[in-house]
């Protein structure tokens, strides 16, 4: 039996075993009772750490000014001022004189302010992140902690973190990571999606208990039932290493009565392309382009974007790669773009709204790169626009695509024969699906966001997790409405939310009339198997009953019988 079992939310139907590496908390503050404290020496240690931190910050500011610009470097000025803040300095000095070691004093001095800022709204809460950064920098210098370097993780590492942001996960090498666990987060949080797309065992939303697991501990991450076994015994270790999953299906699949369903992969970074192809993906149903923009100091060049899309097209020479244009905003922040703070970013300027900003050429550059890649790459390119709410936005995006095609020599959209589509994520887009479908080749329903907006339930907030469930009849009716509208306009329609990867929902989605299901690579074999066992005519009838149900539990009763 394992020494301890912790419970969270399983993010992937996978389990794995490995050694814990804490991310962003490589700092362990020594127990104050264990050390002799010389107030003078501690004060000097603190002063030295402040000097060293200032040096680091200044050189980081300089590098950023040079590579990106003065505006983007301004955050380092703020960090230097937090570092030198007299209230911190006084608090640390007082604590040190009372006999506390410098790290404890620093932790306490920042802690009270961090807590206070965290309790405030939007912009103020972000200051808590700044203070946390400065505190951690100081603590690292005080405790000789090393920065966690992801390029250097030992094989078989289980990464544990408070939370993982998109730029954190972009640095993780899936080859070396055996799994991960986070204190916060739910099934649709960024970290979960990342785990599924890489078929990595992951458990999220474990809560504060997770912080008691130390670096170096051996753990089993069971993403199926959402548990973490600390110090597993031989049997548990062997069971976890054994793995699971259905047979890989390389061929395309049809229902028992001959309806072809495309089963494609959601891809968030190039490292996921090969695993997706190996797991039998027919193509890519959602290629997220944000990774190109994250974790760097300036936007990627047109050539760099061209190469990345080209790589994706070449990975699926006989398939289709649906690329979503840049979807920043919401929870995905890009520091160098210096986007204004928004009270409510999920209802703010994200997706196509941001791309259509007349003061930015990001969109035009991306479209040119896409068109060039389509002309040269092996697979078929399709482009879709995220978070469209109005026909006007779609028309503007289509105009931008025409303009980009005219810009790119010998490569008009017609010549390279790309498909163009719209993501259905807003209630408005679902209601306007007929008008939107009339203008494009396909619709793709992003059920994570559609559910969030239809149900008005934050996908990261576990307290409303029950509402954030795409099997509520309200969401199913939005999906049905969209499919019907698309087919009436001879457009195909796909679904690329997390529900697409749940084999227990495959019959429902096929029955609702979807032509394509796109999911994290991990469950592609299971879903392909489920499609091949489904009879479309029966599924269609059952899906009608499901969507016409009054409650979610009635929906599930319909599906279970």
């Amino acid at each position, binding site marked *: 039996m394992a020494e301890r079992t912790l419970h969270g939310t399983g993010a992937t139907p996978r389990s794995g075993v490995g050694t814990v590496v804490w991310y962003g908390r490589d700092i362990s503050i020594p127990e104050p009772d264990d050390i002799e404290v010389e107030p003078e020496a501690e004060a000097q240690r603190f002063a030295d750490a402040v000097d060293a931190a200032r040096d680091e910050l200044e050189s980081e500011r300089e590098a950023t000014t040079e590579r990106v610009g003065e505006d983007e470097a301004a955050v380092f000025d703020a960090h230097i001022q937090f570092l030198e803040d*007299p209230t911190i300095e006084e608090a640390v000095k007082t604590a040190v004189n009372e006999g506390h070691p410098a790290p404890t004093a620093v932790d306490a001095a920042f802690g009270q302010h961090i807590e206070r800022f965290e309790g405030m709204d939007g912009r103020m809460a972000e200051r808590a992140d700044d203070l946390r950064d400065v505190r951690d920098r100081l603590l690292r210098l005080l405790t000789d902690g090393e920065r966690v370097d992801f390029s250097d993780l030992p094989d078989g590492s289980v990464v544990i973190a408070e939370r993982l942001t998109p730029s954190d996960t972009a640095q993780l090498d899936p080859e070396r990571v055996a799994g991960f666990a986070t204190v916060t987060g739910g099934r649709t949080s960024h970290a979960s999606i990342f785990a599924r797309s890489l078929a990595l065992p992951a458990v999220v939303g474990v809560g504060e208990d997770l912080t008691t697991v130390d670096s170096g501990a051996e753990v089993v991450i069971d993403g199926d039932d959402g548990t973490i076994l600390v110090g597993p015994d031989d049997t548990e270790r062997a069971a976890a290493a054994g793995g699971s999953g259905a047979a890989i299906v390389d061929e395309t699949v049809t229902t028992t009565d001959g309806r072809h369903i495309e089963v494609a992969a959601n891809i968030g970074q190039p490292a996921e392309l090969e695993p997706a192809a190996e797991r039998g993906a027919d193509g890519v149903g959602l290629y997220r382009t944000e990774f190109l923009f994250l974790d760097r100091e300036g936007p990627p060049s047109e050539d760099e974007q061209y190469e990345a899309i080209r790589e994706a097209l070449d990975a699926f020479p006989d398939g289709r790669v649906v690329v979503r244009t840049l979807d920043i905003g919401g929870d995905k922040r890009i520091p160098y773009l210096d986007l204004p703070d928004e009270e409510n970013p999920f209802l703010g300027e994200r997706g196509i709204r941001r791309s259509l900003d007349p003061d930015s050429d990001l969109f035009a550059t991306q479209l040119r790169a896409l068109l060039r890649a389509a002309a040269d790459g092996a697979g078929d390119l399709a482009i879709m626009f995220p978070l469209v709410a109005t026909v006007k936005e779609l028309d503007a995006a289509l105009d931008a695509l025409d303009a980009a095609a005219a810009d790119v020599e010998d490569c008009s959209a017609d010549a390279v024969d790309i498909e163009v589509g719209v993501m259905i994520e807003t209630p408005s887009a679902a209601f306007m699906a007929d008008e939107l479908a009339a203008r494009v080749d396909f619709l793709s329903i992003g059920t994570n966001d559609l559910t969030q907006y239809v149900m008005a339930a934050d996908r990261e907030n576990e307290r409303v997790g029950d509402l954030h469930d795409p099997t509520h009849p309200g969401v199913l009716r939005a999906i049905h409405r969209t499919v019907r509208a698309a087919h009436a306009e001879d457009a195909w329609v796909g679904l690329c939310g997390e529900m697409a990867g749940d084999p227990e929902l495959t019959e429902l989605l096929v029955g609702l009339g979807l032509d394509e299901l796109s999911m994290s690579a991990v469950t592609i074999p299971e879903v392909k198997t489920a499609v091949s066992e489904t009879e479309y005519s029966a599924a269609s009838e059952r899906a009608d009953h499901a969507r016409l149900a009054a409650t979610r539990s009635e929906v599930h009763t319909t599906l279970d019988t």
Partner: protein
Amino acid sequence: MTVERTVTIVPEAGLHARPASAFVQTVNDHEAEVSAGRPDGDLVQAASMIAVTSLGVGQGDDIKLVADGPDAEAVLDELERILTTPEAELNTDDG
């Protein structure tokens, strides 16, 4: 010499981010002791980024500044310039 002044904040970001950085930097570059606060509230140490940010003053809010020291007038002139200059025009290179 103690000088007091109340200024209405112009930068869109309020007393945050760059304006706050420039504000604190300016206080630190002068000899005078400066405190700041909402006109009807407590005054805080203007040399503290944490304290200044915690005021939570936004665009259009009034802020009271009190300076005590030989260059009290000069520091208030400079702070007033920062607080009344739209962010885009703010020159932070003079610190």
